């Protein structure tokens, strides 16, 4: 067994966490906006919502792809076990992603109300199902899934859905993304639609606070190892506290018309949540429950040091460029959108 103190495997654990957090922050707002899409009743409002995410949603999804690729590269057994074990769930996620992409691309290419109505529903429903499925997957990973001695998944699709904790994580993920999406829309819209978004902000905030409270309770009931980690390192309590403060800051910033700061607060809240999950799980990547000795961890699942070194070099060279031009592209598309100027 490989064993070295602060090692490359730990660095990759963190890096994958960063990629998935980046994904949650970025795709989170466009999934959230999609989940709210049907609440906008007027065709040109729906067009504005699509315009608001139009130039960026595709790039946002890349974070998930790269996160998945990094998991494959850095921890092949985890990738292999999770993806084959959660087969049906992942297939549903894939279908959802494809269907959603198709809906965004094709929705406005025809004038007919039926055509648009169909793709609007497809877009919105897939934007709701995806965060729930991803949250359910995360919830299962947090509390552990049945693994056998070979590190293969020993449950079924229904195992993943049969426990309350993952379901609660799924709902909370949806709520978190919906709030995040509503803030993004507040940032990008104006006029009548902006007034409507203000109503959604209230609704999603209540939804998120309630589900977050339920999740916190559920953690004490069903995720004792997370609680134990918190008790062992009480400094970690700062994360949920910061999360609540960041969330409470959202209405304040919105009230003062500082939409962008409200958006940053929401980003910060997502970071705090996922950091808590990451720290709580480390060094487990896929804990085994009920046989913790079969868990897949950074110690028994990492790729070889040469492989991790090569990938780290690639990341160190590539990531600064990615961050720089991603920021530049967001800068180009900053500001409010209307229903016409992204017509293509």
């Amino acid at each position, binding site marked *: 067994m490989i064993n070295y103190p602060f090692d490359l495997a730990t660095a990759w654990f963190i890096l994958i966490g960063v990629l998935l957090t980046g994904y949650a922050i970025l795709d989170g707002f466009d999934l959230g906006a999609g989940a709210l899409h049907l609440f906008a009743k007027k065709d040109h409002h729906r067009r504005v919502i699509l315009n608001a995410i139009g130039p960026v949603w595709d790039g946002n999804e890349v974070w998930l792809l790269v996160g998945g690729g990094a998991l494959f590269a850095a921890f*092949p057994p985890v*990738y292999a076990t999770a993806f084959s074990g959660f087969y049906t769930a*992942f297939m549903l996620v894939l279908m959802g992603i494809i269907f959603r992409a198709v809906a965004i691309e094709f929705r406005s290419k025809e004038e007919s109300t039926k055509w648009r109505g169909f793709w609007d529903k497809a877009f919105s429903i897939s934007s709701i199902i995806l965060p729930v499925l991803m949250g359910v997957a995360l919830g299962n990973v947090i509390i552990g899934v049945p693994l056998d001695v070979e590190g293969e998944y020993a449950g079924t699709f229904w195992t993943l859905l049969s426990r309350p904790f993952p379901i609660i994580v799924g709902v909370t993920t949806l709520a978190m993304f919906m709030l995040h999406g509503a803030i993004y829309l507040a940032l990008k819209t104006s006029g009548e639609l902006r007034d409507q978004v203000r109503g959604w902000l209230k609704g999603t905030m209540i939804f998120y606070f309630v589900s977050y409270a339920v999740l916190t309770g559920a953690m004490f009931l069903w995720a004792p190892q997370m609680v134990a980690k918190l008790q062992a390192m009480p400094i970690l309590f700062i994360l949920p506290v910061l999360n609540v403060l960041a969330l409470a800051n959202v209405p304040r910033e919105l009230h003062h018309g500082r939409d962008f700061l409200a958006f940053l607060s929401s980003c910060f809240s997502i970071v705090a949540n996922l950091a808590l999950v990451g720290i709580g799980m480390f060094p487990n990547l896929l804990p085994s429950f009920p046989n913790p000795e079969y868990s897949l961890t950074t110690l028994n699942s990492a790729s070889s040091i040469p492989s991790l070194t090569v*990938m780290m070099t690639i990341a160190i060279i590539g990531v600064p460029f990615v961050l720089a031009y991603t920021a530049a592209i967001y800068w180009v598309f900053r500001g409010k959108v209307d229903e016409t100027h992204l017509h293509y």
Partner: protein
Amino acid sequence: MSAEILARIQFAVTAGFHFIFPPMSIGLGLLLVIMEGLYLKTKDPLYHKMTRFWVLVFALTFAVGVATGIPMEFQFGTNWSRYSRYVGDIFGSALAAEGVFAFFLESGFLAILVFGWNKVSPKMHFFSTCMVFMGSIFSAVWILVANSWQQTPAGFRLEQTATGEVARITDFWAMVFNPSTVDRFTHTVLASFLTGAFFAISVAAYYMLKKQHLDFARRSLKIALSVALVASVAQILVGHASTQHLVKNQPEKFATIEGHYDSTKPVDLTILGSYNPQTNETTGIKIPNMGSVLIDGNPDTKVQGLDSFAKEDLPPVAPVFQSFRIMVGIGTFLLLLSLVGTISVFRGTLENKPTLLKVMIVSAVLPHIANLLGWMVAEVGRQPWSVYRLLRTSESTSKVVSAGQIAGSLTMFIFLYILLGFLFFYLLDKRIKAGPDADYDEPEPLESQKLKLFGAKVNTPESTEAKS
């Protein structure tokens, strides 16, 4: 059907469908770089119009390419988990590089390419076009590195772990430049240039035949046919070289392609024909000893035939043998078509040749067929291995995934892809019929755009307030 067969069918369906789109994106990307570059150089608004039109087609192709590409990355884990464990240490770094260097680049700058016409300066827009094209090329590099490693593994060692044997990387550059990477990358990228070029040729020939958008059609044809001519000549040379290299790198595949059984005899070249597995002979139109001549110029060269290998180590002959011939036939035909087409378009006689134009319209489908068949030669020709001589396909599947689960997902994929294919062609047809003049705004004169900085134009506070 067994889970293994179903998993293979699912991979073939999803990869085969996906593989329609990226080659088109790469090929159209090259045309966009040429057209927009010419626009900046000559300031001729026709080039601007051409770039605008092809960007829209490109965006459609790209979108479907991304949507169908996502399942490819996840499918290694879902359906081929033992393979993933085996190759992760090696394959992973290529995929990671693809993500970091290619995916972000393509999808990020695509936003500016499609939506940024009025938001950035023309030079910045051209830069974005180049970045999208470069991203698609990088993507091809890394995916072909990974795929070539499966064909000709290098730069690794094997290690026994608690859950089985795995390959570990020892030399990154030997892995990247494994013996077949360069051949397969050049071959695939040239095929992509041909795919994009013949697609553009087809659309422009359609306008020419209908006597619509004639200036647009003429100029698009000149560019696309020139690209096609250069690429098809280069393709024949590269294809020839990569087949020569097979003799050494993957002799089983070479023997299968040529239907060459007897190791003690020189290789004949079968132009058209078939391989009889009972008699182990190929029949049809043959040139004796020509296969040997093509290997190294010597008609007496002998190479390993199918008889040198155990039967369980050989791929099925018929599909590989026939796919190869049709692919080469298409390649040759495309070379002739682009030669005749280029001469006609530059002499200005193409407009009076309706038959040639009709052939060009239909020919858009040929590079796709050749791509698919070439991929069959490569992948079916590698069987029974998923990693050549190291890991059998039958030992690569996911243990915990049942045939029923795969049948379910396969059904969903087929349903979804039929829908997607239908929509793609419907919208493509609509876009082509609408023509380059639809939704087209003349550019401002380049001089007046010079002052505009990156992003400084549309969202001035006045314009936002005015709209709200």
